[in-house]
């Protein structure tokens, strides 16, 4: 009777757990590793499923034996002294050999998967070989200039890639260790200062893929995100073309006023508005702003400018720019702009509301 009750409870617990387990994979969540959209992430997930099912079998067998033993061999009479078995060598050999064998079997697809993720396909084109440079707390991206092999095109926090093509990324960092992680496309690789790491991935479908820094890098590690946007190759080429142009100059007097503030407030000290630089040249302290108004997010994924399909909403963009300029520390505690720019550190040089409006006007024109 009691055994039945325990069995029923165990069965109930087991079914609940299994249901929980299965429903806890959410492939449609933004950074879910269960929704791979490219070959590297897929191969990594496939390996995971192998180990998962194997692990589940081990779990059920061993925990099952544990529960069974606890029930079957519970004390019936205090004076009982069971047989004082000291061991069984044959049994011990078997239960050493079988796990070792199972592990050796898993090793084969594991090693294959390892070499797969470390070697970019031979078909990877040089024009699809990018650089990603980690900063506290934003991502710098550099593309080879298709018109000039000595030059690179610099952008920040959004990396466009052509759908269906392998993309190779060289990873670096200017300060501490960061990590480049876009779960739906590939597992992460760290951006280590002076180490020059490498990874590759491919997006099989067009879309916006969420990425986040995945190596603790200081105060605003939680606030360091990026987007990988996969578009058909012709669109990728035209995007890159637009990126290679310097910031738009406008004849609108309001915008020109803003451009003036941008200079006088010292923004140009850290933020460039020209995107074509010499290959390997030192980056700037802050993100390139030449085309900031066309980005879906501000402040490395912290403030959203666009709706789901990606078109920038002018009102949202202006609101976000204003929020950032009013108090960057609210958005990104510890950021270098709040701690380094005169307009934030020197109360006498604080930006007035009018100056902020002018800057917002200027920056939202930089499409």
């Amino acid at each position, binding site marked *: 009777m009691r055994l039945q009750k325990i069995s029923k409870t165990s069965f109930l617990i087991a079914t609940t757990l299994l249901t929980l387990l299965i429903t*806890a994979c959410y492939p449609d*969540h933004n*950074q*879910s*590793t269960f929704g791979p959209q490219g070959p590297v992430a897929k*191969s*990594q997930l496939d*390996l*995971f499923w192998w*180990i*998962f099912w194997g*692990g589940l079998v*081990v*779990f059920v067998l*061993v925990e099952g034996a*544990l529960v069974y*033993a606890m029930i079957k*061999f*519970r004390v*019936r*009479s205090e004076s*009982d002294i069971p*047989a*004082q*078995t*000291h*061991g*069984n060598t044959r049994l*011990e050999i078997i*239960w050493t050999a079988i796990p070792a064998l199972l*592990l050796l079997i*898993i*090793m084969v697809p*594991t090693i294959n998967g*390892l070499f797969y*993720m*470390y070697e970019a396909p031979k078909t990877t084109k040089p024009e699809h070989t990018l650089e990603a440079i980690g900063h506290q707390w934003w991502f710098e991206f550099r593309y080879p200039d298709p018109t000039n092999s000595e030059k690179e095109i610099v952008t920040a926090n959004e990396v466009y890639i052509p759908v269906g093509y392998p993309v190779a990324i060289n*990873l670096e960092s200017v300060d501490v260790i960061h*990590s480049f992680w876009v*779960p739906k496309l*590939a*597992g*992460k*690789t760290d951006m*280590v*200062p*002076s*180490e020059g*790491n490498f990874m590759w991935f491919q997006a099989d479908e067009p879309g916006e893929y969420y990425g986040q*820094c*995945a*190596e*603790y890098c*200081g*105060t*605003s*590690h*939680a606030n360091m995100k990026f987007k990988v946007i996969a578009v058909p190759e012709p669109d990728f080429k035209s995007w890159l073309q637009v990126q290679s142009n310097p910031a738009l100059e406008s004849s609108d007097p309001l915008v020109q006023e803003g451009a003036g503030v941008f200079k006088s407030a010292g923004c140009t000290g850290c933020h460039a508005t020209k995107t074509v630089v010499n290959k390997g040249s030192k980056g700037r302290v802050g993100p390139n702003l030449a085309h900031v108004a066309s980005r879906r997010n501000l402040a490395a994924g912290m403030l959203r400018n666009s709706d789901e399909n990606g078109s920038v909403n002018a009102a949202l963009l202006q609101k976000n720019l204003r929020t950032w300029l009013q108090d960057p520390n609210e958005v990104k*505690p*510890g950021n270098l702009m709040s701690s380094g720019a005169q307009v934030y550190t020197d109360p006498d040089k604080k930006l007035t509301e009018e100056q902020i409006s002018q800057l917002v006007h200027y920056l939202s024109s930089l499409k």
Partner: protein
Amino acid sequence: MSTFPISIPRPVHPTGIWGWFTTVDHKRIGILYGVTAFIMFLTGGVEAILMRVQLAGPELDIVSAAVFNQLFTMHGTTMIFLAVMPLSAAFFNFIIPLQIGARDVAFPRLNAFSYWTFLAGALMLKLSWIGGATDAGWFGYAPLTSVAQNPGTGIDFWIISLQILGIASLAASFNFIVTVINMRAPGMTMMRLPLFTWMSFITAILLVLAFPVITVALIELTFDRYFMFNFFNVANGGSVVLWQHLFWVFGHPEVYILILPAMGIVSEVLPVFSKKPLFGYKTVVLAGIIIAFMGWMVWSHHMFTVGLGAVANAVFTVTTMLIAVPTGIKVFNWLGTIWGGSIRFTTPMLFSLGFIAMFLMGGISGVMHAVSPSDAQQQDTYFIPAHLHYVLFGGAIMGILSGIFYWFPKYSGKMYSERQGKISFWLIMIGQNVTFFPMHFVGLDGMPRRIYTYADNMGWNFWNGVTTGGAFILVLGFLLVVDNIGRHWKNGEPAPSDPWDARTLEWSISSPPPEYNFEEIPIVRSLDAWWETKQGEAHKEVPASGGSGENGHDIHLPQPSYWPFVSAAGLFIAAYGVVFNDLLIPWGLAAIGLTIGFVGVYAWSLEPVNDPEEEDSTH
């Protein structure tokens, strides 16, 4: 025979608080370690609860980013160095001499010194919250720990307290290694050692080999910070990956240091409450040795994403997967122990069974990490804290709780409340799973680690809320444990010498043991010496202090001493002097501290033996 210039007599039978300050009795030192470490464990728990409240929902503002980053750093450092390791040390201290039939450890004053030095390091670390604690993670990756990134004193306190704690650990380890090798009762061969003593012995050897690595790493970091060296400064040719290698060559054996003692406890408790010997004693010992040995070959699995390359990652994948084999053997041997037994579900037994269940799950997620391509998705996400809390909380802490209840009668002389113990077990078991199981989900759902908040639209809200709820269930469980242990230590039913009908020598003497432990040093004729003795006497009731009836008058015991405390106090002052090296005189405070420490050690080496019961002996 030379003496100290000023003749300072040793304390003679000190009582009250002086008794505790000058004790060299391993049992008292064990209790000091245990109480201190448990309090530190609770502070680490508070740090955890604060984090969980902050993460209960998206974009909360309970603690700031800066404070959160200090919280997770201090939580990790506290739990590893101030909780689990010294809790294990508490048991090494109290139990090992009793299990091997000795009257104390090989170096009693060094033992006291280890405790006071541990306290010094622990205080220094916890006090560093004042003025800003370290916030670079418990693993302190360069260059986050550089002066450029982290100019405050937080990192310095972290470095120096770890060095102090290292001295404490090394001293203790030397002591236990010599004790186990040299002070076993006649007839107790190594292969008749109780399993807890065996695992502790292996742990001590691991400590002696592993701590120097982190000591060197911390010295290099200190030189980078204080003297503009460039070990980890890439601008001048240093390497940040060097720190990671050094840290993890220490760090991986460290996790075996954390788990082996708990495995030893489980290997004691299961046989007693199944009324059967440990299944395959020799194999379990061998598995422990193999784990300790192989533990040196896997460290770069913590660095799978750092860019070591496919070949290096492949090698460490293979070694990491292979270490699952000896670990699995232990689990099967434990199953074999309870199989066919007569199982009594006391509180210590429940915790040991819980250990098996939880450690197994942690082991399975560990194998998932070992597969380095999928680890590229799991590394630095919540999947890792899920794994590590299953092995360290569900494993090490549950094992330690098992020991706390199992040996409670022996160290306190009282019985705890079994009913309350069982309730606290279930709360902790349920709490552990409700807290840490959902971390597997959010980890694979893309939530990185060490983030003080997360956006509303990521889909992580629900499971984070559940995890936080689970943490409060754990709080309840631990409140019950504290109450159970605390209340009954004072007011519980007096305990007999062998309340569990157990198997090892500590149960052959009274609860608590007399100061001299054994009236007569026992002669050991087999494994499970006490059990075999009892069977031989056909279950005859053995008196609590059987033997010569001389009430211990002729037993010479190590005498109390001030100097271990003084030496540790000197170290403590010197440590602060290193961090605050520019007070009145540069390095002045450090010099004062070192002098005090030096005087302490000098006096210690020359202090007279003045046991008033000794008429004419010179040793």
